[in-house]
């Protein structure tokens, strides 16, 4: 249990530091900044307390917002994604949804890809919708969601490839 928690703290701090120091100023192709800290929300154990998880995600978003001078889009998108995560877990993993750390071991690759893809897409969609906050810019919102989402997915896939077991 203690070991699990230390691992979570490690991912929390690693996510924040990498996001703030590296990815926030990357500007890939001029405008794409991948959102890496979402790895914490993906990897958090599936059967943990939902209240504790929402509060942790909220703190994560808030810290990122405060450190990157963002008005608050990260906080809102983190809360939304952490609230709907149980539904997405049930949807993507089906009968395997009760495996505690399903992102690391014990589940099939296709299920994991579906889960990560859905989470990243919804997170980015909420993030850019709140950032632009206007219906008339939906083209920009979709463009940013898809391009940034692709880059985030690649980064997350590489990272998960290192830490997960078959």
């Amino acid at each position: 249990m203690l070991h699990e928690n230390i691992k979570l703290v490690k991912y929390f701090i690693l996510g924040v530091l990498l996001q703030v120091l590296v990815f926030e100023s990357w500007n890939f192709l001029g405008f794409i900044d991948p959102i890496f800290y979402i790895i914490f929300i993906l990897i958090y154990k599936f059967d943990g307390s939902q209240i504790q998880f929402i509060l942790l995600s909220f703190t994560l978003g808030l810290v990122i917002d405060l450190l990157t001078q963002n008005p608050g889009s990260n906080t809102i998108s983190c809360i939304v994604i952490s609230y709907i995560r149980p539904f997405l877990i049930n949807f993507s993993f089906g009968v395997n949804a009760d495996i505690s750390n399903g992102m690391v071991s014990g589940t099939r690759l296709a299920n994991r890809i579906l889960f990560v893809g859905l989470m990243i897409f919804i997170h980015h969609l909420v993030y850019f919708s709140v950032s632009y906050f206007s219906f008339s810019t939906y083209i920009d919102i979709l463009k940013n969601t898809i391009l940034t989402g692709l880059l985030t997915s690649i980064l997350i896939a590489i990272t998960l490839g290192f830490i997960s077991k078959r």
Partner: protein
Amino acid sequence: MQQIINALIKNKVFILFLALLLFSFKFISNRSFYHHSKFDKIAIGLTGGIFNIKHSVNEYFNLKKINNELLIENKKLLKREINKNENKLFNKSNIPFDVFQAKVIKNSIKSSRNYLIVNKGTKDSITREMGVISSKGIIGIIYKVSENYSSVISILNRDLQINAKFKKNNAFGSLNWNGINTNKVKLSDIPVINDVKIGDSIVTGGMSTYFPDGILIGVVSDYEIDLGRGYYEIDVELNNIIGNEINVFILKNKYQAKIKSLE
């Protein structure tokens, strides 16, 4: 009671989610001016819709009073129409104003920064910074505009300053509210060389682009001399009661953009 508590416990995750979401919206609106004004726009639209219903009920019961007001106003307009041709040569202030008629659907006088909401918006070509008057005096200046409604900074708002002058000798100063009495405002910056008597009329100064020259604001009810600065501190009793206003007129200065570009 037990059932309510059970329901709360059952939905605790959702309640926590909603609370955090509300907090984040508050957070984002405090940190970003863009989001703040967007939320304001939505809020004006919503309150406008609700108060419109309330207003239409109230309006029905006030028809008789409004009728009387209209009669008096018609009389005044007729008089002005008749006198217009005689005064044409001497009428110095001929800045043309367009007039839009609107109705107040929400009016607050309780805070120190009061706002009104009127039922005209961008659809009726209302824009920001237009003056708002009633038949008895001035009301304020348009602050924010949504599609169907606009909010008006009331003259009973501590942030608003209006150029005003004495009708008898054109000595001008600036008018603002001290936040205490809802039918009194303060006129300051009138130099002591001018003669002030209780009962003198105060009118708009015409030096701003919001209001034309010479609209009655109120009468002097009290004054004192600030010897240290050499100016009067004058209490002006408003001619209109802001809390009772229903029919208002929005004034659009056709040359406002041109004048602004010169300033």
